[in-house]
């Protein structure tokens, strides 16, 4: 099962990341440019001595290993965080015993428990689809995460259309969810799957359109370039030239983006596909054990991914005054600089995740017709209006500032 998921994610990674990387020099020019996998391989030995296919294969396997670790770590940390956040919002502590300090090992213990649980497939389920659905869900999110740069010079693939790759691969998880719902041979699962399909189709549109606003402000689709663009505020390299600061309509665009992202990641108040009190557990009703945990991991990885996309295109990506200060003192290009950029992105990502949790534990769930009304009747036109206004603003800015 896990092997299947990992093979699939390796496939998506191959197509998504390694393939684009192979178009450029795989072995790269030593030192400058080149992704960190290539650099790691260089450290292993002189490139001439190793055949190209071996380097490509090792590169892919390493990438998969790093991604799997990353997704697991994100999921583990987020689950623990969700429990603590919800606990403290609800006058309780959340896990306190496992591992000692504030139950830090609770998620690990849960993971072990899930691994050891009986592998149940309900009678009458479509076994093949039931098997493959969690893998597809996870593969989609692996592929999307592969397109995510971790720092200015840490990335799996330098993609000029990075944000489109992320949105495209990220939305393939829906297929897995619909498959899971259909294959489960449960009416509740079917409801959940159909809700998911309807909801994601409705919210892909405002999500994409609202992202166009910062894309126009920044003039790039690449996540790395988008971050770099946001370093300067009116020509001053202070690390605060964030898209929301340079164009007021980006704030409105962010609100639309955020609502759509909540709907995309099936988070409350848009958790209708799961809808615990209505559909028992929605599309996951019949899943248990490690298969169920794949859906869980996907949810948290998708939350992180959406938060990071939001952080990169609206809130400066790697840029903070700290990075600007490091550049001014000439320490850019060092390992520390890369680490600071990486840390900034992770912090911003988890700030978004925290916001999602905060909303989840505060708001009631909306109804399906309200979800549809909001997506089609309000968010989509508003996002289009935002695009128009952003374009006008940018045009005026270029007229005034030349």
């Amino acid at each position, binding site marked *: 099962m896990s092997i299947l998921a990992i093979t699939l994610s390796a496939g998506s990674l191959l197509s998504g990341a390694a393939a684009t990387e192979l178009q450029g020099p795989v072995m790269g020019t030593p030192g400058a440019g080149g992704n960190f996998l290539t650099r790691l391989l260089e450290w292993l030995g002189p490139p001439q001595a190793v055949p190209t296919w071996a380097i490509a294969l090792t590169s892919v396997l390493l990438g998969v290993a790093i991604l799997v670790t990353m997704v697991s770590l994100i999921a583990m940390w987020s689950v623990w965080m969700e429990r603590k956040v*919800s606990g403290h919002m609800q*006058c309780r502590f959340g896990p306190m015993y496992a591992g000692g300090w504030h139950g830090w090992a609770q998620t690990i213990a849960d993971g072990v428990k899930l691994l050891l649980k009986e592998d149940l497939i309900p009678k009458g389920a479509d076994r093949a689809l039931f098997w493959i659905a969690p893998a597809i869900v996870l593969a989609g999110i692996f592929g999307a995460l592969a397109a995510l740069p971790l720092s200015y010079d840490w990335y799996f693939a330098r993609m000029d259309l990075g944000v489109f790759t992320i949105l495209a691969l990220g939305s393939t998880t829906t297929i897995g969810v619909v498959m899971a719902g259909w294959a489960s041979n449960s009416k509740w699962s079917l409801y959940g799957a159909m809700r998911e399909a309807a909801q994601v189709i409705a919210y892909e549109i405002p999500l994409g359109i609202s992202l166009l606003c910062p894309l126009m402000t920044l003039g790039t689709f690449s996540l790395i370039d988008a971050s770099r663009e946001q370093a300067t505020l009116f020509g001053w390299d202070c690390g605060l030239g964030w898209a929301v600061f340079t164009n007021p309509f980006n704030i409105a665009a962010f609100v639309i983006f955020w609502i759509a992202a909540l709907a995309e990641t099936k988070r409350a108040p848009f958790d209708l596909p799961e809808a615990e009190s209505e559909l028992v557990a929605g599309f996951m009703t019949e899943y248990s054990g490690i298969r169920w945990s794949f859906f869980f991991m996907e949810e948290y990885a998708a939350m992180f991914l959406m938060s990071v996309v939001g952080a990169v295109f609206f809130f400066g990506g790697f840029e903070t005054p700290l990075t600007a200060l490091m550049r001014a003192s000439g320490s850019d290009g060092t390992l520390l600089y890369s680490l600071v950029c990486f840390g900034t992105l992770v912090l911003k990502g988890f700030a978004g995740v925290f916001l999602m949790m905060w909303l989840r534990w505060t708001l009631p769930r909306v109804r399906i017709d309200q979800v549809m009304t909001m997506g089609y009747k309000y968010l989509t036109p508003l996002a289009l209006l935002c695009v128009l206004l952003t374009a006008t603003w940018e045009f005026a800015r270029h007229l005034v500032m030349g």
Partner: protein
Amino acid sequence: MTDVQQHTPSIHLSGEEPRVLPNGEREFFFDVSTSDLEVNMGPQHPATHGVMRVLLRTDGELVTGAQPHLGYLHRCAEKIGENVEWLQYLPYTDRYDYLAAMNNNLGYSLAVESLMPDLEIPRRATLLRTICAELNRIASHLIAYGTYGLDIGAFTPFFYAFREREWIQALFEKICGARLTYSFIRIGGVFNDAPPGWLKEVAAFCDVFEEKWREYYDLLVTNHIFVMRTKDIGVISAEMAYDFGLTGPMLRGSGVDFDLRRDLPYMAYKEIWDAGAFRIPVGRGAQGTLGDCWDRFDVRVQEMMESIKIIRYCLEVIEEGEVIGDVPKVIKVPAGESYVGIENPRGELGHYVHSDGGKVAVRCRVRAPSFVNLAVLEDLMPGTLLADSVAIIGSTDIVVGETDR
């Protein structure tokens, strides 16, 4: 799933002649046959608040029919009442509406006492009974508040509600040793006097609760999403409420001003009402149609505050004294029959007791408010969405232990 597979929608041309539209286009007719999906909500389902089953017929998200099935928790409570002694039956009353056990004890005790004209209930006992019954009403409405939030998808209010409920349970534990099934109010009075300082603690609880109540109101009752989800859903008109024999918040939510505590007063409620200590919240249709889910919910939340006022009044007038009348160890109730209805958190809890002068009742019939209120589901649910049906079940605030007894 089998239903879906058996009735796969078949789409083909019906063979009917295409109609020519005014603009020259032709309109074809298709034979499209779909079937409703029958789905069991329950017996194990988070929205049914216990072991109840609602058989739903749905067309996509639309509910076209609903039929509640009950009896999963049937424990022959009434039959037991005919086989055990008067006082021995008291613990069984705890178990019909386990969220309002004090009120159940009270209802049974009042019914039995009504057959014993010589028995005098001390005033302190009456006031202690009132305090406990109203505290229990708050505890029960807190559960209604919290679980309704859960039904709508808001988790956090549930925990806030439980925080205060926990305090009430601690108070009950101090006075009678139990946290859920009290058997504290009994024939002739109450089991024992309040421990020293207990009444002060109740007063302290009232002070804190008044603050927290405002929090509840802002967090859920006036929350925009919550209002969107509950207004104009499951509308019960006043006529419909009469026809179904609804009582309690279900009836008052429809704008009918009827409360047994005022209209057929028992214990000290007449005195409390005459003193102007409380009012009776009635649905106003403040957020949409009168008698919708929001109104019922609002009535419950308002009632918590009124209960606090009643408790405050009782705390003011309570004096030292006896807490139980002159009741023998083995009670023999004079021959006769009697029906006493009291205002439970969920509506009118009626006890009909029939005695032939012996140690055991001839008949002990319970009119359970949840059971009567449940009947309205079948009429309310068709035509709503699946999520609304959950909201409607939640707004009836049934306790399955009571519907089945």
